């Protein structure tokens, strides 16, 4: 970016960087003003697959994270004093009060509050008729894609298969976010996920702030909504038909 923001307090590195230098580039955006800032790496196993060995050693480090992060760049690196300002590993050994350390655990270190069910109605009532409508709407999108993309094989170029339509129709009572689509169905592009969400929205009008999400993706919605349905006005319950 080449632009300097002095007061970034937290850097969250989602899934670790590809190289240790990238990681330092990202981490270095925090605390340009010299005040205490945090670098938080959050990852799961698959995400570090493509990362270089040094990154893997860093995230798997069983000792001081500062030493692990800098050792390839600075052979004389040592943990920071006071230890509670060094890293999560060193904090455990900090006894800056004489025998213990009074620094409280930071918000992201406390055990993640178990998420109590997904928020505000994560299923919707879907009738048999709704499912039929959804199927034909999705098939329409599918046809349109076929024409546009000149696909020879049905799902060759866009990955929008009839199997996908079946799956979405079957599970449409629980689809509310792009994430829902991407994690539960074999959809490999955000674009297709958005198309599916839009079709669902068109039919059910109960996805909060979909337009804003799309705006953030700089995608223009394929249709406009005349009415916004207020979430509170709808009662959600498990679908009771025989799907």
């Amino acid at each position, binding site marked *: 970016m080449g632009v300097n923001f002095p007061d970034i307090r937290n850097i969250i590195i989602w*899934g670790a960087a590809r190289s240790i230098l990238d990681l330092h580039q990202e981490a270095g955006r925090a605390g340009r003003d010299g005040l205490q800032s945090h670098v938080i*790496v959050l990852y799961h196993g698959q995400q570090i697959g493509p990362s270089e060995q040094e990154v893997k050693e860093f995230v798997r480090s069983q000792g001081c994270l500062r030493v692990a992060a800098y050792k390839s*760049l600075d052979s004389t690196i040592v943990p920071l004093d006071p230890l509670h300002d060094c890293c999560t590993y060193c904090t455990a050994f900090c006894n800056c009060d004489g025998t213990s350390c009074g620094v409280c655990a930071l918000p992201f270190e406390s055990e993640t509050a178990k998420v109590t069910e997904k928020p505000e109605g994560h299923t919707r009532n879907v009738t048999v008729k709704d499912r039929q409508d959804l199927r034909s709407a999705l098939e329409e999108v599918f046809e349109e894609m076929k024409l546009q993309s000149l696909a020879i094989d049905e799902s060759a170029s866009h990955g929008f298969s009839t199997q996908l339509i079946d799956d979405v129709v079957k599970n449409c009572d629980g689809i509310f976010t792009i994430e829902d689509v*991407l994690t539960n169905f074999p959809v490999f592009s955000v674009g297709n996920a958005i198309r599916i969400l839009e079709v669902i929205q068109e039919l059910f009008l109960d996805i909060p702030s979909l337009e804003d999400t799309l705006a953030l993706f700089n995608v223009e919605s394929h249709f406009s909504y005349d009415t916004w349905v207020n979430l509170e006005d709808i009662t959600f319950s498990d679908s009771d038909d025989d799907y």
Partner: protein
Amino acid sequence: MAALTGTADDNTQKNIREALNMKHDTLTVYVSPNCKNLRFSVKKVKKNEQLDELQWLVDILKEKGKDAPKTMIFCNTMNEIASVINHLLFKLGVHAYDQKTKAPENCLLSIYHSNTWQASKDRILASLKGNGLK
């Protein structure tokens, strides 16, 4: 002649010396890249629980709005950006906006990518210099 570089490991330093035909006993001034005001945390999580790890950020944003500490999230893929921003917006609901109106300039979150429109980039940069977020 002087060669200046930032964050170069031994290999990179060697490459630079060779590329510039510098002698092996070249005077080297070394300053550690150690940022003493950064505190490091690493957390390995289960794939399906990764988004829940952002709950603290959601709580801070709900409580402090635009006065929340500025935070950047670096993702490796577009899909990750999508799921993170989607999760945060969904969890925050109306709290994702500084004011009642849901105009982009009131949103506390935004995506900054090389493909982001210039107008949006300008808005985000201005916001980061002032008191925006992400």
